């Protein structure tokens, strides 16, 4: 009683023998039928090919959370994933990351649950209310507010995919989501108390969105953490570093604490047209606070302008009327301030009429695309890598000078994970002759965040070895490349910081894709 074998798939399984402390890979051939799950394949191996293979499993229906593993770099539940759906002839199965391996695919889940237990996952109410002999009234609409957040199985997949969790102080997406689930439960009265366990560590979250992306139950962890941020901001329980950023945006409309009158200093000598002198253009170039004020990133903005100039694009910037897009501010939980920034920018967009907006930063791109009120404007936005990839394809730019570099491209989370733009930056790099592009192990959806999102680029206070950027540079070094290419000003800042921390400036350079392109034209 079974269906026919559709194909034979090779399973390369990462093994660890705790006694000899040896890591190795075992390869097995597994017959796959329609419906065969990764778990069934693992059980097939254990029953028929190798009894010593160890992995956890139990319910085989996606609810007990036992069987999370990494499959070709992506964490998922083995029992809830069909092999044929992965459309591969060979699969690399590895244990979940961020937790020590005990044996083979079995990891020590204690760090995950230790963090989870720091939050109180029952209702907090006065003792006399809990003596009530009947249920508390809760309207269906009140239940609906937090229901989706109750579906978390504590499988620890979010934790394993989380760049912030390499610092064990961070409670992790599941715990922070559980905390928020209780805050918005109409029956709960524990809010001030619930803020305590997270207030000194939640700012490590970079909003890279891996938790949400890989959650087998589609729980919106990343958004819950933003909501937690909001609660802390409202309560005023925020660290000095976070306060400084928000105050700076409040005072100057940018997080760099620099007066807006200096906003066009970066473009000196480039003859960039600006609003209000200009009221219509083909392209509105939205530069980004970091590219405007950060001396290192100014270089990147200048290259973009000179390429526009060279291509003869009719473009303009908002000049001193460009305010921070608000992406970091929103994800730091300052919703009111975000709204104000957004309304200002939207107002100016209507005054400077342009066919499209091109952004340097994936963060501006993301918020214009996905966050209310920007999203209601249905803005025609491109990230610069999309704009330039098209230009190269249409022959408008010819990157013909050879650039002899070994390059790994690091996917910025707000471009990749949040907007699925993986190919455009690679197309630009591939168009550069002589440039040897290779992929890091953690790439595209599985990319590992640089650690700069949600304001962390300005608030970083983790020890160097606990910073995601340091982890990432080590990965690039292991790959043996001399350049790590990025397409985000914040990735430039964090990764260059890591290069300095590791003292490897003579081994690896951090370059924006634009900088490599300039060398080629």
């Amino acid at each position, binding site marked *: 009683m079974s269906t026919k074998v559709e194909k034979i798939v090779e399973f390369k399984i990462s093994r660890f023998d*705790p*006694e000899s402390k040896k890591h190795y890979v075992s390869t097995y051939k597994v017959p796959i039928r329609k419906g065969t799950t990764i778990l069934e394949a693992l059980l097939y191996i254990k029953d028929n090919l190798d009894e010593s293979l*160890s*992995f956890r499993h139990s319910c*085989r*229906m996606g609810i007990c959370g036992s069987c999370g593993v990494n499959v070709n770099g992506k964490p998922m539940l083995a029992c*809830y994933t069909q092999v044929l759906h992965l459309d591969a002839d060979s699969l690399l199965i590895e244990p979940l990351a961020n937790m020590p391996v005990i044996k083979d695919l079995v990891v020590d889940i204690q760090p995950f649950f230790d963090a989870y237990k720091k939050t109180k996952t029952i209702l907090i109410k006065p003792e006399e209310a809990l003596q009530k002999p009947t249920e508390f009234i809760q*309207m*269906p609409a009140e239940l609906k507010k937090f*229901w989706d957040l109750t579906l978390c199985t504590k499988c620890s997949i979010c934790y394993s995919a989380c760049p912030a969790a390499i610092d064990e102080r961070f409670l992790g997406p599941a715990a922070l989501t559980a905390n928020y689930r209780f805050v918005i439960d109409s029956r709960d009265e524990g809010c001030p108390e619930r803020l305590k366990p997270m207030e000194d560590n939640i700012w490590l979250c970079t909003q890279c969105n891996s938790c949400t992306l890989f959650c087998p139950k589609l729980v919106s962890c990343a958004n819950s953490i933003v909501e937690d941020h909001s609660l802390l901001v409202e309560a005023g329980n925020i660290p000095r570093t976070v306060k400084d950023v928000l105050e700076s945006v409040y005072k100057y409309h940018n997080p760099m604490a620099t007066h807006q009158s200096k906003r066009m200093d970066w473009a000196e000598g480039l003859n960039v047209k600006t609003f209000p002198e200009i009221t219509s253009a083909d392209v509105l170039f939205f530069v980004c606070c970091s590219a405007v004020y950060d001396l290192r990133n100014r270089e990147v903005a200048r290259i973009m302008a000179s390429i526009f100039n060279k291509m003869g694009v009719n473009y303009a910037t908002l000049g001193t009327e460009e305010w921070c897009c608000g992406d970091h501010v929103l994800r730091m939980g300052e919703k009111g301030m975000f709204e104000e920034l957004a309304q200002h920018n939207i107002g100016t967009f209507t005054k400077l009429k342009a066919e499209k907006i091109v952004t340097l930063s994936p963060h501006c791109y993301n918020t214009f695309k996905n966050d209310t009120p920007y999203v209601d404007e249905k803005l025609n936005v491109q990230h610069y890598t999309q704009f330039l990839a098209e230009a190269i394809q249409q022959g408008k730019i010819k990157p013909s000078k050879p650039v002899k570099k070994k390059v790994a491209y690091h996917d910025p989370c707000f471009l990749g994970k949040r907007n699925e733009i993986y190919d455009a930056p690679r197309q630009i790099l591939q168009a550069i002759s002589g440039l040897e592009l290779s992929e890091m192990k953690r790439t595209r959806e599985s990319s590992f965040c640089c650690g700069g999102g949600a304001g962390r680029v300005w608030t970083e206070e983790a020890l160097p070895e606990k910073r995601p950027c340091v982890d990432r540079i080590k990965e690039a070094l292991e790959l043996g490349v001399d350049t790590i290419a990025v397409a985000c000003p914040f990735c430039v800042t964090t990764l260059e910081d890591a290069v300095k921390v590791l003292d490897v400036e003579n081994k690896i350079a951090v370059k924006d894709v634009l900088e490599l392109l300039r060398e080629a034209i």
Partner: protein
Amino acid sequence: MEKCNHDIIIVGAGLAGLRAAVAAAEVGNKLDIAVFSKHHPLRSHSVCAQGGTAAVMHEKDSFDLHAFDTVKGADYLADQDAVEFFVRRAPKEIVLTEHWGCPWSRTPDGKMNQRPFGGHTQPRACFAADMTGFHEMHAIYGKATTYSNIKFYDEWFVTSLIVENNTAIGLTAIEMTTGKLHAFTAKAIVMATGGHERIYEFTTFSHTTTGDGMAIAYRAGVPLEDMEFVQFHPTGLIPSGVLITEGARGEGGYLINANGERFMKRYAPERMELAPRDVISRAEQTEILEGRGLQGPYGPYIALNLTHLGEEKINERLPLIRDVAIKLGGVDPVKEPIPIRPAAHYSMGGIRINVKTETPIAGLYAAGECSCISVHGANRLGTNSTADCLVFGVVAGEEAARRALSTSLREVSKEKLLAEENRIAEILNREGSERISVIRDQMRRIMNEKVWIYRRGDQLESALKEIRELRKRFKDIKIEDKGKSFNTGFFSALQLDFMLELAEVTVASAIPRTESRGAHSRLDYPKRDDQNWLKHTLAYCTKDGPRLEYIPVTVTKWPPVARKY
């Protein structure tokens, strides 16, 4: 061997075990309570409970109605004093889990909602969509972790109970990460390890729910009661056997055969798809045996149709089973019927306990599916199991606490520990010619083919012979991995050892019961026989296999009458 002691040890961290821990901790904050589980508590099979938890919560309902429904559902084999106690305690438990945060589904005016369920004459199933057990578990685990005097031993595999002078004084357990065997002494021990349906091939059960506690207690001298009564759930998803909740039928889903006929009208004209599970599973099996099953790549099946409920209702009330059907069955219940057939689902039988959850061995208690009180008799009603875990989990926790406060620890004899150490080492060192997975699969096939919904004396006899043969072959297994840390191959062997023991007891208990009652349907004895068989089976462990005894059923208000739906 390292030794350690606690006042109370609870084995198993599902609904019953966790609830017992909380109840014990409530009795005294000085009590030192340990909870052992071979996996993290939230991985327990209780999280798979879907449809609801039964409790009398509204005015039209009554304790007598709930009790009678339960007794009738049990085909009059339930002990009615236990049932009456059970139904009275259930509502309080629901309210407590609600107070701890369980997200129960609500009526439009914000009260606990209740849905209809098989064999219940009132909508009595409190539910949290179709993830009731999952949410109860998270609520109780949240509560349990607030007590500093509950210590969790996650991923510790209990191997044996230590009993001296008919008193349980401790146990042995392997720390799975190190492979080390440790000894623990305690003043009271609660078994809460769940059922044994993994002895079957087609089952709704989690892989790890292998009846360990039943087998351990049985070997320690406690009788297993009514083990011939195994419930077959009418809707196991094809091909895996994953549970599709009875709540699907509670919400209006119905069953059809190959002719597109709602065949339940011929078996239970009044209750139709909401008749008790034994009735529906027999009906489905009959349809299949008589050639009216639908044909699929995995053999004949029955279709569970929910399409008429509409996407909105399915998403609100049955989101999990929709997801499961899509991911594991390849069908979207919004668009097409779900292919199902009966699957082994619940053990009405288990460790013999009284209404105070005491086993015949002093200091040893049991609760939840591993136990038999008997509330469920010959057939359990849906939603009564999670209620049972909560109600009797509390009783076990409180009784164990009471005993722990009034007795002292006893020293375990070295010989006993050495004997267990040798037994474990001998299994680990086996270098025979048999594979664990081969014996396990054969056991499951035998149980599926010969000890299924319809049984016959000669087939049961032959099953017993074959299971005993497998037990012999088990002695000749080869453990390929001799490693100490997380040796899951070795744990599979220990689990198989337990399952073979329980399969033998199940079959041996079924053979002499020459009647059909509840889930035990004999083709050679198709009628219920109250004259001779209104009694409970007790199986005692002996060197030559189970020795059977019988004890009467307690009848309080409802003398047996013909059972019609």
